[in-house]
């Protein structure tokens, strides 16, 4: 799983930080999303997908690994 963020789209609502605090944080100066871990472990999959789903600005996308 690979996580992408778009800081230009981010509106700093912070819901990703509540869903997956090990993966997302907010920048001190303006509250915009920062990625703590672009390739989080599989056990965080649900939390990361939830963060992407509830992001109001569609600033988070999740790339799933190809099935082998």
């Amino acid at each position, binding site marked *: 799983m690979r996580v992408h963020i778009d800081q230009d789209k981010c*509106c*700093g609502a*912070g*819901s990703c930080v509540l869903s997956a605090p090990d993966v997302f944080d907010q920048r001190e100066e*303006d*509250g*915009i999303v920062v990625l703590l871990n672009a390739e989080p472990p599989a056990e965080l999959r649900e939390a990361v997908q*939830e963060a992407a789903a*509830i992001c*109001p600005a569609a600033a988070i996308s999740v790339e799933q690994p190809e099935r082998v």
Partner: protein
Amino acid sequence: MTTAERIEAGPGTGPGESLPPLDLPAARTAGCPFDPAPGVERALREEPVTRATLWDGSSCWLVTRHQDVREVLGDPRFSADATRPGFPFLSAGGRELIATKPTLLRMDDPEHARLRRMLTADFMVKKMEAMRPEVQRLTDELLDRMTEGRTSADLVAEFALPLPSLVICLLLGVPYEDHEFFQERSSILLSLRSTREEVRAAQDELLEYLVRLAESKRQRPDDAIISRLISRGELNSSEVATMGRLLLIAGHETTANMTALSTLALLRNPDQLARLRDDPSLIKGAVEELLRYLTIVHNGLPRIATKDVRVGGVTIRAGEGVVCTLNTANRDEDTFPGAGGLDVGRDARRHVAFGFGVHQCLGQPLARVELQIALETLLRRLPGLRLDIPFEDVPFRHDMGIYGVHALPVAW
């Protein structure tokens, strides 16, 4: 079909037009004060994108489904700019308020983003979580005072309203002793019954007060938000006052009403109240569920289409107004099975009670901290809490832009 042709053709001629246009704001059924108005619930079931008529006789689209509401609010082709001709206003006062001094709530990017980003750091999750000890202290002090030597009180006046007012005053740098002044003005601004003149006067008085405050911060800066907005040097005192007005009102009216209405909803659902009291670890999820179930921004969010856009099988034309009803979206069975019931164990995180899109509530991390602490503490400290008047006599805020109760007499 153009809007003119559509009006010419009358009802029942196109997609989204088989139901008669619904009058907004729609009235709730007496005896079901937690449920959306039957008219909007019918639209959700039968014609999720439908025509509606506003208070001033103008018409707009009503968008009711969870997925469609998210699409509209998340789509930059739907503008929040209230100065665009045809923008749907939900009350006369609302039009007056927005048309004269628009806040970032009714602007589009990039101007909206520029202003919002001056504030996002102040309400970020880490900072609001760090407020927990202070919010807990204020909560305990208010409850100490409310319960000392007494067994009944109005929960709104003595707890639900002062708590978020104290907190937002602290964050903004507004003296709390002025709370009666700004709470009175704020009630006028949010009342659906206020006339244009009343709204204009209340708005002027509030802005004058905040301009004076901003000026005084120029002389004696502090570490709170208004002072820091001034010291950035990008906004004049009047612009800071407009932003301060938004934060002051949004910061206390919303959480105050959610706190009181949540308490009442729990008292009316004693099984859910008992579950939450027995297992306080449910509090975070329970607050999300209460936000979903109660959706106090009950008249919906207005937008205007800037391009032709298809929503739920209906083409909304450029220039047409849209109202997204958050309360029906949060009762959409496709997203929340059993949506009509309160279930504190539900995963309700996808609710749109804070809105959706780039305008989604900036203060939501603060609201969550306040609601979690207020409700958990209230249930823990007052195990015998009960309603002190017949349920039928509770004064619900049907007349206000933010739903809730005007007063909540309780005993313990």
